[in-house]
């Protein structure tokens, strides 16, 4: 089937292909030994042509969209049909015959499924079920009405002598034709309505109808076709009954097949945790299997795929990873868009093939008028009935759009091509009529529906971002309505939906969803989660913005803070698991490598705030520049932020202990720590410094650090990453890993000089890690800034967060930025940092090292690592480092 289809597509290439095709044969005769060069066109012909066709269609799409004016006025489907006509004309002129057209087999087996799957999978299910009654009415009653009235009216037209007698068709033939021409086409409707943006209800009704009426169309077509083939004389009463029964079998059977496959699909994706990579494939495979199965059993395949997509989405989306979700989305859209493009183009090309045509003006005009008239009449009648039962009646304007939006498309064309000419002598006339009808509806109605919608002032769809309040209250309303229906004693839609949701929650979701995913699928939680991510993203974006403006001045900060505040608080409060990744460690290690940076750091210790900020800014810039991973990176940020804040408490102890450099800040932290009951450790630290020489302290710290070793840091790093993955949803995990990898390569973050320093340092042997560190640091840093902003509101947390921030930024920042730039800014910030340290009550200071030392466990190690960086500096250049340290300390103490 595919082969045949492909060869049909081959025409356009004919001109170009002719020469190459002959080459392989002519040289083949002499039977040469070894060929240096060989054309094997025939071996690749079929797939090559398919690829070329799609390429042509895609290029055409690009060209159309070069001009916004054109595409805003003319629907893409029109342009594609016109393009098809042109291409078909060229082919006809070149090849003298029109070989290529839309093959029913290709269409039904390859082109239609992606479109239907796409529309079913992304169908807004709530809206769909809210309007299910109307949709079903229009799809079933409407289609039957259209088919019979159109068919009968055409027959009447023929009886009246308005159709040329050469059209040999009886009542059954016309009914058959009516059945295939009456169905609103999903592809055409989608193509046009997606650009029109009418309100959701209207869209879902027209679109849902076009999808669901497939079952009716298929049944009608098959029944009529078999009747025609049997001959009207042989049709018995039982055959009519069978026809009616088959309507139920085909539709319900199709839906059942779809639901079974949806169930299988959901269940399968539950177990793909370790093979994420095939998740998207599974979605497509099983959906396609549903389609083919239904087709095989001659059930409604469109219905099957629609139900499959509709039914599985909730569970599949919950089960598969974030990346898979994106992949599924894009692949589905790409496939559907490809198929749609090719369909319309082939429609245009097929129309050129006049050998299959037989024109009869009476028939064509009559059909056009009848389908428009009966569509409108049917809509009005049905709407009148429906409005008796609808809460929100469909008004006249809606009805006009619905009538006018009844586009016919490729399904009708494919069906008419499938007719058997021996059984249906008037096939050629029907083909011509169908082509005209399709072209008329797609081009004329497609062109005019947009202005019409504007002119009628149809309510347009409006997009607004979901808010937690809306989501929550909507759920409340649902429950209230269900309860009220209960009280009133009328078990209506709300009641049953509520029951269904309870059933789903209790059994289905338990069965079909991964346990880890289950929570995320709670809608309220979901909205909350997404809002948080959005906040983080907007924050990061803003941070980048601020940076670029170079005015890092205070005024910008408050605004940024205020923006980020809510999200940050939420992040902070969001419970993380017990483990925490200490990114600080990484930061310090890296910074330590660069001596100059360290020196700078000491000098600017007072102005630490500022460097940090700069660093952050640069970080955020980097992130933004890393477009591909931007989103995930941001998520990573968020997560890191969270962890960090949580980890601060534990880290504080260690840092104060060993660290000489970070000390001043640490003291600040300490203060906060005191509030949290961790204060004791911090105090002794300060005293020790003041009393003893700074050098001694550093030595001690060095030893400790060395013990901790680089391997440890590495380990921690790994752990941290893993941890993040675990703690957060799987999605985040993936994002994190990828994000870090991606970020690493960015060269700017890594200080230029560090390499030598690293080499010198014993624990720095593993250079490869550097990049990783950097990346993690960058991710980390932005959050830190957020913290600072947030600090203003939350005093306790602030103190904890600030010290690490200072450290990280200074170290990292220095390399990329010239010192001169940093220094001027420094003066602005000092006040914020020193203050906390000063506040230390002297009594607390004594609490002592012993405490901290004894307590040093895992947390200590983590803390030590940050120190490592500093120690390195001392190691390399003790004199300078020491002096710097001393200065720092003094400052801190003095202050």
């Amino acid at each position, binding site marked *: 089937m595919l082969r045949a289809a492909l060869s049909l597509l081959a025409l356009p290439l004919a001109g170009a292909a002719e020469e190459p095709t002959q080459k392989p044969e002519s040289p083949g005769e002499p039977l040469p030994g070894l060929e240096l060069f060989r054309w094997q066109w025939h071996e690749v012909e079929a797939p090559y042509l398919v690829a070329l066709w799609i390429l042509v269609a895609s290029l055409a799409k690009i060209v159309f969209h070069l001009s916004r004016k054109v595409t805003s006025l003319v629907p893409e489907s029109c342009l594609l049909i016109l393009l098809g006509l042109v291409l078909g004309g060229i082919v006809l002129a070149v090849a003298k015959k029109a070989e290529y057209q839309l093959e029913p087999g290709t269409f039904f087996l390859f082109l239609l499924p992606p479109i239907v799957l796409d529309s079913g999978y992304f169908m807004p299910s709530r809206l769909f079920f809210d309007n299910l009654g109307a949709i079903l009415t229009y799809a079933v009653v409407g289609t039957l009405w259209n088919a019979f009235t159109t068919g009968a009216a055409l027959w009447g037209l023929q009886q009246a002598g308005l159709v040329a007698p050469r059209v040999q068709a009886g009542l059954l033939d016309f009914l058959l034709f009516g059945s295939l021409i009456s169905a609103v086409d999903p592809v055409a409707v989608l193509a046009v309505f997606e650009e029109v943006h009418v309100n959701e209800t209207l869209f879902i009704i027209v679109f849902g109808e076009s999808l669901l009426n497939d079952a009716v169309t298929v049944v009608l077509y098959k029944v009529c076709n078999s009747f025609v083939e049997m001959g009207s004389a042989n049709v018995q009463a039982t055959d009519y009954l069978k026809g009616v029964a088959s309507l139920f079998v085909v539709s319900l059977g199709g839906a059942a097949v779809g639901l079974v496959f949806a169930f299988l699909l959901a269940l399968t994706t539950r177990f793909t945790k370790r093979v994420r990579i095939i998740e998207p494939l599974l979605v497509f495979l099983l959906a396609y299997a549903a389609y083919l199965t239904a087709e095989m059993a001659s059930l409604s395949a469109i219905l099957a795929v629609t139900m499959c997509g509709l039914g599985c989405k909730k569970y599949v989306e919950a089960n598969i990873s974030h990346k898979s979700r994106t992949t599924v989305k894009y692949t589905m859209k790409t496939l559907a868009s490809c198929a749609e493009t090719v369909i319309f183009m082939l429609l245009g090309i097929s129309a050129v093939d006049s050998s299959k045509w037989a024109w009869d003006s009476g028939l064509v005009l009559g059909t056009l008028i009848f389908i428009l008239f009966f569509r409108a009449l049917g809509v009005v009648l049905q709407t009148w009935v429906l409005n008796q*039962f*609808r*809460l*929100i009646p469909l008004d006249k304007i809606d009805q006009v759009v619905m009538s006018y939006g009844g586009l016919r498309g490729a399904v009708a064309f494919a069906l008419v091509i499938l007719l058997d000419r021996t059984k249906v002598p008037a096939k050629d006339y029907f083909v011509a009529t169908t082509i005209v009808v399709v072209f008329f509806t797609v081009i004329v109605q497609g062109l005019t529906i947009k202005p019409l919608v504007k002119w009628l002032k149809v309510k347009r769809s*409006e997009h*607004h971002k979901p*808010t*937690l*309040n*809306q989501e*929550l*209250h*909507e*759920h*409340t*309303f649902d*429950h*209230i*309505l*269900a*309860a*009220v*229906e*209960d*009280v*009133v*004693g*009328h078990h*209506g839609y*709300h*009641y049953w939906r*509520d*029951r269904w949701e*309870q059933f789903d*929650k209790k059994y289905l979701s338990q069965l079909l969803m991964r346990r880890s995913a*289950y*929570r995320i699928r*709670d809608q*309220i*939680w979901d909205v*909350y989660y997404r*809002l*948080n991510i959005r906040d983080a993203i907007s924050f990061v974006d803003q941070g980048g913005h601020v940076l670029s403006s170079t005015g890092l001045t205070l005024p910008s900060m408050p605004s940024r803070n205020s923006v980020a505040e*809510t999200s940050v*608080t*939420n992040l902070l*409060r*969001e*419970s993380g698991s017990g483990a925490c990744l200490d990114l600080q460690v990484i930061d310090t290690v890296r910074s330590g490598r660069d001596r100059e940076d360290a020196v700078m750091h000491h000098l600017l210790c007072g102005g630490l705030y500022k460097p940090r900020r700069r660093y952050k800014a640069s970080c955020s810039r980097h992130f933004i520049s890393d477009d591909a991973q931007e989103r995930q990176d941001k998520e990573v940020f968020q997560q890191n932020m969270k962890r960090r804040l949580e980890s601060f408490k534990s880290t504080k102890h260690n840092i104060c202990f060993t660290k000489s450099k970070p000390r001043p800040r640490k003291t600040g932290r300490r203060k906060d720590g005191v509030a949290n009951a961790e204060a004791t450790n911090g105090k002794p630290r300060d005293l020790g410094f003041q009393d003893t020489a700074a050098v001694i302290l550093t030595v001690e710290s060095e030893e400790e650090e060395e013990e901790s070793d680089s391997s440890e840091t590495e380990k921690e790093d790994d752990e941290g990453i893993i941890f993040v993955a675990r703690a957060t949803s799987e999605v985040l995990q993936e994002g994190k890993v990828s994000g870090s990898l991606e970020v690493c390569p960015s060269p700017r973050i890594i200080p230029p000089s560090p390499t030598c320093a690293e080499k010198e340092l014993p624990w720095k042997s593993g250079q490869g890690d550097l990049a990783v560190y950097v990346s993690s640091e960058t991710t980390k840093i932005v959050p830190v800034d957020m913290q600072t902003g947030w600090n203003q509101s939350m005093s306790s947390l602030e103190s904890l967060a600030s010290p690490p921030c200072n450290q990280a930024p200074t170290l990292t920042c220095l390399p990329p930025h010239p010192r001169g730039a940093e220094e001027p800014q420094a003066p602005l910030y000092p006040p914020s940092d020193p203050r906390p340290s000063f506040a230390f009550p002297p009594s607390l200071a004594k609490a002592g090292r012993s405490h901290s030392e004894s307590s040093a466990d895992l947390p200590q190690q983590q803390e030590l690592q940050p120190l490592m960086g500093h120690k390195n500096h001392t190691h390399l250049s003790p004199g300078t480092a020491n002096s710097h340290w001393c200065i720092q300390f003094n400052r801190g103490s003095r202050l």
Partner: protein
Amino acid sequence: MGSRSSHAAVIPDVDSIRRETGFSQASLIRLHHRFRALDRNKKGYLSRIDLQQIGALAVNPLGDRIIESFLPNGSQQVDFPGFVRVLAHFRPVEDEDTDLDPKKPEPLNSRRNKLHYAFQLYDLDRDGKISRHEMLQVLRLMVGVQVTEEQLENIADRTVQEADEDGDGAVSFLEFTKSLEKMDVEQKMSIRILK
């Protein structure tokens, strides 16, 4: 009241109820029928227990609160006018309703009143504000068990923050209304059969 007939004349004050609630005669008769069916002992009023007997209310997360809303100000019973008055909130908004507005008091099924009904389901202590605590309680009812208490608190915080405009850490009715500005409340808080 105890009569078995479902004629409108049986309902006391049928005209004033109609005027107040806007229900059609047929709806009132049906509701009265339902009222008497729920009233097990033919007391002429519904007790809390009567309401609790209603099928799926027990599994409705908001069931208790909705029962509470039928029982005004802590009383333990509700008579037919009171019963209907509550249900009148869910009458669909019709075109003629909007015409009446200027002179008469706002109909019970106005957007504002619909919202207010929902609001007082949240506002347990009737102080005109949904506090964080109250929000948390509702969320606990609505969100699945899989979400931890801590996360629930986060959501509650966020929800309150989102709607809270004056920064008092609670959601007033005005803020509540504003947060739902874009929602089609008239549609989402109406039941078709209650015409």
